[in-house]
């Protein structure tokens, strides 16, 4: 279910780092909690994000949630497809529903995130 190569935050964001570029999205757990996503507010390319800074807003029919940067860095790309097809966040949260790519500032921050086995355990704890 949850890709091995990703790192996960307690707020249910994932980040997948290749080179110094990290792709960021929300987890399957998060999209299920939100319900049908109807709109995603994206940041502008070039925005500099601090660790845990809110960089966007996800709206479902009856809820709004902030999305937080799991690592700090500069936004290099946003998933424009979400403008027309916000449902990608529900249908493919770990792949086509990615939200932004950022140039990761420091690898050290990644250490604070959870690897997949730890995140799955974390989810089990939440479901109790």
């Amino acid at each position, binding site marked *: 279910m949850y890709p091995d190569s990703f790192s996960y935050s307690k707020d249910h964001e994932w980040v997948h780092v290749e080179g110094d570029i990290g792709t960021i999205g929300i987890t399957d757990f998060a999209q299920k909690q939100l319900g049908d996503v*109807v*709109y995603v*507010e994206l940041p502008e390319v070039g925005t500099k994000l601090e660790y845990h800074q809110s960089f966007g807003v996800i*709206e*479902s*029919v*009856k*809820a*709004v949630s902030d999305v937080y940067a799991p690592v700090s860095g500069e936004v290099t790309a946003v998933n424009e497809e979400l403008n027309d097809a916000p449902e990608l966040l529900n249908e493919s949260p770990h792949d086509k529903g990615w939200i932004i790519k950022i140039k990761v500032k420091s690898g050290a921050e990644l250490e604070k995130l959870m690897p997949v086995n730890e995140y799955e355990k974390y989810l089990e704890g939440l479901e109790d």
Partner: protein
Amino acid sequence: MSYISLSDKDKKEMLARIGIKSLDDLYSCIPADLKLDRDLEVPQALTETELFRYFDTVAKKNTADSYRCFLGAGAYRHTIPAIVDYLSMRGEFISPYTPYQPELSQGTLQIIFEFQTLIAQLTEMDIANASLYDGASGAAEAVLMANRLTRKSKVLVAASVHPQYRGVIEAYVKNLELEIIEIGYDDSGRVNESELQSRLDEKTAAFVFQSPNFFGVIEDGEALSRRAHETNALSVFLIAEAVSMGILASPGSQGADIVTGEAQSFGMPLSFGGPYLGFMACAEQYLRQFPGRIAGETKDVDGKRGFVLTLSTREQHIRRERATSNICTNQAWCAVRAAIFMETLGAEGMREMARQNMQKARYALDRLTDISGVEARFSGPVFNEFVLQLERPLSEIQSVLEGHRIIGGLALDTWMPGFKNCLLVNVTEIHTRDDIDALAAALRTAAR
């Protein structure tokens, strides 16, 4: 008189089921020192008959109805087709709540959807909302919206915008970091374009103007919008007299980005100032920052068309302190009246009504300015309202008019100090030639 429908037996049985002895026991959760130990000092209860008598007596202390009245200034007397009252008074329109349960509120929702469509057609804008409190608070909401859209904090507002609208804008922005700068007018009564141009810059969020403006003068909305756009400011187009849209070029065709105003004229009696009906429309790209309720079309599980309140994540009950506005209600019942009004008049009726307003105002302006000692204050074209400059002191003239049972208009200097002996006169399709001639005759005596 009371509207309680429990019998003595009901009360007894209900108290027994709850397990308490008296109504007082229901309040055991309120500390004794907070309980009121006396009756409220309000008049003794009235029966329906006595209540009617009381209100009838109070109402008769109003004598305004016996005058020929030429007051406008943001509140206009117009024709109201009989079916507006007849249909809108149905309990199904008056007594429900906001349509949160769409399966039980398709009537209200479809009418709001039609209202949004009618306003969009009239303004020639992409989208309209379900209504706002009134024109004045609509103006303030538009300023806040422009600020959110541009993230710029300077707003230019024409001095020819209704003073109450300007007042409400000021009250709303006072606590936010927004700067309001007023732009003057020229001898025609229109916005002073060179002053506007000199004040516009890249830090300007919006230019807010009204047309027809407070003096009744029709602005060149296209030129004003173009100026605003030159520095990437938004063009915010206010309309205090919605009837004007029946004949004047629409705000949308003149480059407006946000249009808001007062639609009291569409079926709301004067009502001493309320309830009225704010409306708002904008370009589709601004939807996410659009305040107020919005109805949208969708389908039910059987594939049938239906309507719901939508995009509610913009609103306070979900976004709380980050909402586009704190508005909770719209003026749904007033919007129902306006929808009945607009659909009854139809394309032709709306146009004919507007045409007659313009025609009668022109007739009145010509007749009145024929009188010596009476001049038009501004040279610009007018819709159904205009400013007269009188030679003699206005108070003396007003008392002569009063002798003829005429309220000639609004003494402008009560609101705008620079306008000594100026009268703002409104003429609508309701006024007969006889009314206008009577005003002219009385003014001829008075102005001498």
